């Protein structure tokens, strides 16, 4: 992706996200607060964030790849289950990824 295209993506997505915020403060609430709309919006983050976890941890291009990222994710899940603070979760995941990288050389 060229630098110019990347800037277009950055700016269009930023404007779109701003307009979504502004819409909530501007349109009649009855337009937004329909049961099925709130239902979908309540659950979209779970679906997309989980998809991003999976794609970021276990794929490279169009292939499934098992490497240090997945090991890091497992350690992160363990740390989250033990209620570790965010920064600790990230440091442990990163250290695991680096360790696997060094060991797998």
């Amino acid at each position: 992706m060229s630098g110019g295209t990347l800037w277009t993506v950055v700016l269009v997505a930023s404007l779109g996200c701003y307009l979504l915020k502004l819409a909530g403060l501007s349109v009649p609430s009855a337009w937004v607060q329909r049961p099925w709309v709130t239902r979908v919006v309540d659950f979209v983050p779970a679906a997309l964030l989980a998809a991003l976890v999976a794609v970021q941890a276990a794929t490279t291009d169009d292939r499934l790849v098992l490497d240090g990222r997945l090991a890091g994710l497992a350690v992160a899940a363990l740390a989250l289950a033990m209620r570790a603070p965010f920064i600790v979760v990230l440091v442990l995941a990163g250290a695991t990824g680096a360790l696997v990288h060094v060991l797998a050389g």
Partner: protein
Amino acid sequence: MVTSLVAVSDARSATLRDAMGLGLAVGLYGAAFGAAADAAGLAVWQAVVLSALMFTGASQFALVGVLGAGGGGPAAIGSALLLGTRNTLYGVRLLPLLEPRGWWRRLGAAHWVIDETTALAVAAPDRRQARLAFVVGGATLYLTWNATTVAGALGAAALGETARAALDAVVPAAFLALLWPRLQRGYPEAAVQRRVALAGAAVALLLTPVVPPGVQVVAAAVAVALAGRPRPAAVTS
């Protein structure tokens, strides 16, 4: 009279403390975002502009996550917008609390309508505190988030190969940390959230070999169908 003044100032300092504490804590996510943006091939300036203009964490992470996976512009923008839809609902909840007068205030307030400011404002004991929490929380978060984004992006740009491998493992962990609270007991319909999350991950992995990069993330939104129909209890809340 005296006791009520004390109570007011107590509530005020509690609001300020919560708002600033949350702002500083969430700032750490800004560093993770800056690093993730660098790992995805964005320039430091692009990471900075995203934090300054988009200013909604999950959407920012999704945009750079899809770009980092080799995804195209439409998939990256689509995933950011899908995650941004919840801010529209937040705006609806905030409007009666903030009552912004005039278009300029409305345009300004809209920029800070995110998870954290909504949580702070809704939790405040009255409308005055809600506005204070929104403004102080929003300002603290905005400043920290942008400063730590710069630090994260610059820091990641200076990394060597092993540190790159560490960063590659940090990015999925950051997404998991964003997702985690929604799956825990105590979150509304946590069991359904877990089901939708598992299905979203499965859809994304199954589609990875067959669709252009990034499209599988947007397509994972179909997993929302597993949430089923709106429940009567959810309608009234």
